[in-house]
């Protein structure tokens, strides 16, 4: 049944996100074309500037919008009137939750790919990629790891960070359903509460980790003396913390889906 639930989750989110993807690509093509003739006419130059601003705004908003669409789908499909149908389908709570998580992940990847493509179409990215490559090389050297490790770690960092926020809001919405009134308001309140709790847990865990690895680590970082092994351990540890938080959020949401309170 997971496949079927996923099919409809992907379709529904796609209906909201494909227009954004189309807008990004079309705008990127227009920008590229305008760029070719921009220096020939002042008016075109103004239009180009305006379009570029709009494009940057759209690029900045794209991931936020993708995040919003994932949250909206979760709330609408599970806890609004539509929830009466979703929860009377012969489907397990875990299938519903796993499907919502996978679809949020799929569209994070899709939006990221479209953003990179749009950027490559819109402007000459060879310089940007050169700067990025240099940055990666510097980081790889100071961390004593290969370039590909830096790339993989960065991608993992983005994915884990994004997914932990998605699941945090899923859990917040799910906890909001415990209340008999103002469920939407309580969903927001619970999401904020979870955010602060997760921040406190992360800081405490990091502190514990630093003490365990090397209490002088902070001094070493302050004095700009690199401590690559320790830093690598801390990065891996922060990944583990994110994974644990994701697990806790999943358990909270799953538990609430098993104990529905659709009034």
């Amino acid at each position, binding site marked *: *049944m997971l496949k*079927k639930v996923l*099919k*409809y989750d992907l379709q*529904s989110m796609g*209906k909201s996100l494909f227009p954004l993807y189309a807008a990004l690509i079309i705008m990127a093509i227009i920008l590229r074309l305008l760029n070719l003739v921009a220096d020939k006419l002042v008016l075109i130059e103004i239009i180009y500037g305006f379009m570029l601003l709009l494009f940057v705004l759209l690029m900045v908003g794209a991931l936020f919008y993708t995040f919003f669409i994932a949250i909206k789908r979760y709330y609408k499909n599970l806890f609004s*009137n*539509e*929830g*009466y*149908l979703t*929860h*009377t*389908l*012969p*489907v*397990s709570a875990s299938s519903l939750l796993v499907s919502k998580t996978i679809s949020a992940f799929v569209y994070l990847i899709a939006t990221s790919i479209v953003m990179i493509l749009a950027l490559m179409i819109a402007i000459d990215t060879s310089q940007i990629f050169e700067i990025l490559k240099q940055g990666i090389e510097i980081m790889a050297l100071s961390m004593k790891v290969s370039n590909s490790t830096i790339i993989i770690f960065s991608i993992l960092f983005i994915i884990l960070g994004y997914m932990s926020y998605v699941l945090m809001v899923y859990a917040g919405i799910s906890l909001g359903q415990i209340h*008999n009134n103002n469920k939407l308001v309580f969903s927001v309140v619970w999401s904020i509460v979870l955010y602060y709790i997760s921040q406190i847990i992360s800081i405490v865990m990091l502190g514990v980790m630093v003490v365990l690895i090397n209490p002088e680590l902070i001094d070493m970082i302050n004095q700009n003396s690199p401590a690559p092994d320790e830093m690598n351990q801390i990065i891996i540890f922060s990944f583990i913390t994110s994974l644990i938080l994701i697990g806790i959020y999943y358990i909270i949401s799953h538990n609430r889906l098993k*104990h*529905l*309170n*659709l*009034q």
Partner: protein
Amino acid sequence: MSLLTCHNLSKSYGKTLVLNDINLEIPSGKIIGLLGPNGSGKTTLIKLINGLLMPNSGEILINMKPVGINSKKVISYLPEHSYLNFNMKVNELIQYFSDFYKDFDKEKAYQLLKKLNINAKDKLSAMSKGMKEKVQLVLVMSRKADLYILDEPIGGVDPATRDYILDTILTNFNKEASIIISTHLISDIEKILDEVIFIKNGQIYLYGEADELRAQKGKSIDEIFREEFKC
């Protein structure tokens, strides 16, 4: 074997007790009216049977099994308001039901839609409230379920359409199945009821055969209801 059993079922919202120690046994092959005034606990009972709410105490069994995936496979539920995604077209919804419910009869759904002059290619958002209710009823009645639970199925439609809808329900349900109909409009459905449950202040006030009750009291079910629930 009873199709639906409720044992000592209680449910409260905060401090308000909505259902108080409900005990019920519903057999197969019956049309049952779940009747009671506003706030009597009808919809709460229906939601508990469908697993949309959790009881505070007691249990519900469907075919001797607790509420869960197995019960959802055999219950066809029509809520009092719309539960469909308005951005979907009718034929997409038919595919949706067909994907999830093994007992869904696509052909029957299209036949019923044709009779009601509903275009399957239309989006729900472009339809009137009454049309949406009809689509929902068609979807629910196109399943070959063991138990149909219809919460106010004729509440939002005009009297002429009511008869048509009742006829649709009667001619399309699986004859070995039972139907629970919750409504205020008793006179409209009285003629089709085999049994009636009167629910008052969260308790079963009366449960019996419709014919027996009529003979015993010398009145119609509608009249008995008006008398018992007089304000």
